[in-house]
């Protein structure tokens, strides 16, 4: 049986659009120091490091090398992974497998991105190869726009529902000291008056570009209980990728293909005896790059039936006080340092299990939480966290 492991330290920076006061390495260090402080460990206790970012965003080749001293990689084993939007979760996966293998007992997992260095949308556009045509890409924004249109058509959701998703995200973000966008939106009209970016997506339908980092400390079962009074167990992880460039690389143009989310759910839920996700899981931190995508993902992760995602929002089920809170942190809509975004999902889910969510702690008791990541041509990584094994 694999070694079991837990999260014993959680740290993140505050997130904002520009950080001129720190360089990339110093910014990442803030999260590392916070995680070490949280676990009450010193850097000497860390045996290995797993780091993730999207290197073309900052146009820094081998960024892990540049921050070796500041982020604590120096003199330690480690890896840098990069899988686009899911990078931060891929680093979590590497940490998971390396600790589960028994090779290391205490590992540091870092996701970071400093998006004030370059042009994010351009860097995402560079994911399309020019040999398959310039017309093949409109950046991630275009992909989500197409999907939003389809979702609108098939589910009957209205722009107002998307606006409600933003309102929820904003209310939650305002209660999260680390969140980036805190707009203080009052009404659906406040959202609907924001300008179109890529029709039908408005500025406020989309996630921001943030600078920030998140660090987690993983420990094997025997060390975890000594390090932390409230270890959060990483019960399972599932990565599902697929090839890009089926014409609608994000959507499902044929209407019959399987989404990576469905496959990831099927595998993860089955292995962990989850039959009714909304009953068996208490809370979710999902990677929702747009308002529309959040409703869509509710359905993909089987939080509700097909075409019913918008109803969850309408009924307030996924609010902090709701029956099944989703993204009490404010989510990606409020905070999006891409390489760190999936790591933050895991971190926030773990905070909720510990009951350390502070002002954004869910009202209901959280024993089991799900963190998901989305990236590349609709790739999915799902992490299942538990208070006790």
């Amino acid at each position, binding site marked *: 049986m694999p070694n079991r492991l837990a999260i014993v330290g959680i740290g993140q920076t505050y997130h904002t659009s520009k950080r001129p006061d720190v360089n990339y390495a110093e910014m990442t260090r803030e999260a590392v120091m916070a995680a070490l402080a949280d676990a009450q460990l010193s850097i000497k206790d860390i045996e290995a490091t797993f780091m993730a970012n999207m290197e073309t965003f900052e146009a820094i080749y081998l960024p892990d090398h540049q921050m070796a001293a500041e982020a604590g990689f120096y003199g330690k084993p480690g*890896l840098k992974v990069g899988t686009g939007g899911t990078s931060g979760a891929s680093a979590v996966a590497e940490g998971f497998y390396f600790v*589960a293998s028994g090779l290391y007992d205490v590992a540091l997992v870092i996701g970071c991105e400093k998006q004030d260095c370059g042009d994010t949308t351009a860097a995402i556009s560079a994911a399309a190869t020019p040999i398959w045509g310039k017309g093949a890409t409109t950046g991630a924004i275009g992909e989500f726009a197409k999907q939003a249109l389809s979702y609108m058509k098939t589910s009957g959701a209205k722009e107002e529902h998307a606006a409600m998703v933003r309102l929820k995200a904003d209310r939650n973000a305002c209660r999260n000291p680390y969140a980036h966008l805190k707009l203080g939106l009052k009404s659906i009209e406040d959202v609907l008056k924001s300008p179109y970016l890529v029709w039908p997506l408005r500025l406020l339908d989309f996630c921001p570009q943030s600078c920030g980092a998140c660090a987690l400390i993983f420990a094997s079962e025997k060390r975890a209980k000594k390090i932390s009074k409230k270890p959060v167990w990483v019960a399972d992880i599932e990565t*599902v990728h697929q090839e890009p460039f089926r014409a609608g690389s994000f959507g499902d143009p044929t209407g019959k293909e399987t989404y990576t989310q469905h496959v990831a759910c099927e595998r993860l839920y089955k292995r962990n005896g989850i039959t009714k996700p909304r009953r068996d899981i208490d809370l979710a931190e999902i990677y929702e790059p747009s308002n529309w995508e959040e409703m869509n993902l509710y359905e993909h992760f089987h939080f509700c039936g097909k075409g019913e995602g918008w109803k969850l929002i309408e009924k307030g089920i996924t609010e902090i006080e709701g029956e099944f809170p989703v993204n009490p942190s404010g989510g990606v809509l409020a905070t999006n340092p891409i390489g760190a975004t999936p790591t933050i999902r895991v971190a926030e889910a773990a905070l909720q299990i510990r009951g350390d969510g502070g002002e954004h702690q869910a009202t209901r008791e959280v024993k089991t939480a799900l963190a998901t990541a989305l990236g590349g041509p609709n790739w999915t990584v799902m992490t299942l966290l538990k208070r006790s094994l």
Partner: protein
Amino acid sequence: MAERAAIVAVGQTKYQPNRADASEEELAYEAVKQCLEATGLSLSEFDAAVSCSQDFWDGRTISNMNIQRVVGAHLNDEDKVCEDGINAVYAGMARILSGHHKLVIVVAHTKESQAEKSLIENAAFDPALLRQLGLDFVSAAAMQARRYMYKYGITPEQCAKVVVKNHGNAKKNPLAQAPLDITVEDVLSSKILSSPIRLLDAKPISDGACAMIITTEERAKKLTKKPVLILGASNCYETHYLGDRDLAECEALVKATSTAYSMAGIRNPIKEIDVAEVSEEYSYQELMWMEGLGFCSKGEAGKLIDSGMTKMGGKLPVNPSGGVISGNPICVAGMARVAEAVLQLRGEAGDHQVKNARVALAHGITGACGQHHGVMILGR
């Protein structure tokens, strides 16, 4: 938890520049195909794929999108390691040891010919303090070479002997890019790139791919008659700012090596290791890394090469494949070292076979002046 991980198949393209005829995907597939043919496995049987490539070299954000189809990643687990390929093998090994995965395919690809090397390497340096100086890996390595040679009295002739030895070995390796018939004088009279590094001291631009299949020891025996076990592995980072490092030393390699040795139970490397494949992008590096790997004490590597101990037929042949200097691309180089070690242990290295090799060492580097080292010990 599995006891040990084993490699059951390896595949490599021929290493050569200007593989413009193939896309990254087709290049990777050439290597993957060899692994599938050798084992009879199909791409749908793998639990996971670990790939290794760099967005910068592929010229594409999320470079692993290039190879999804040929590693069977459709609705499957895949992760990309952005270091040298040897670390992808390490990650694959961790997945097997964790017990979560039983069969993993690992693949690395790079087409150096399609990109601008100096610009990419320059982007690896701190933007505020180093990048604007126009440094790249050759100029950085040259400063390391100079310091190392100065500190330990290593001569240009000794470095040149590494080049002659490795290109000589490469002549017997059909996959090697540049088997050159050269002498020490040829090396010493070749064009200076960045003193003291000359053209023939440096690895050439190269394209290629490497793939391998990793599984549990138990499963390996069913898949092949000659599984190769991973006995020990580790890696380690150096600090970044070149001026903070004693460039004549390779602390990170020493650390990575000692972990890998203790895992594999190796106390006397010279005695217990039969063959070593070392990543020498520049000639001085083979000497430096031999010291780091504990094949000799500090500063003694010059004498080691003089003694002929690392030649084919010597006590510890180093780089019988011809090494990185005879042509391996970035990212692929370290994995190719593992692949060559596997071939040696299986007795399938053809004309560059080391007799009765039982334990082999593979080593990979990433970054300027070897900022990240990976070491792996393999055995029959």
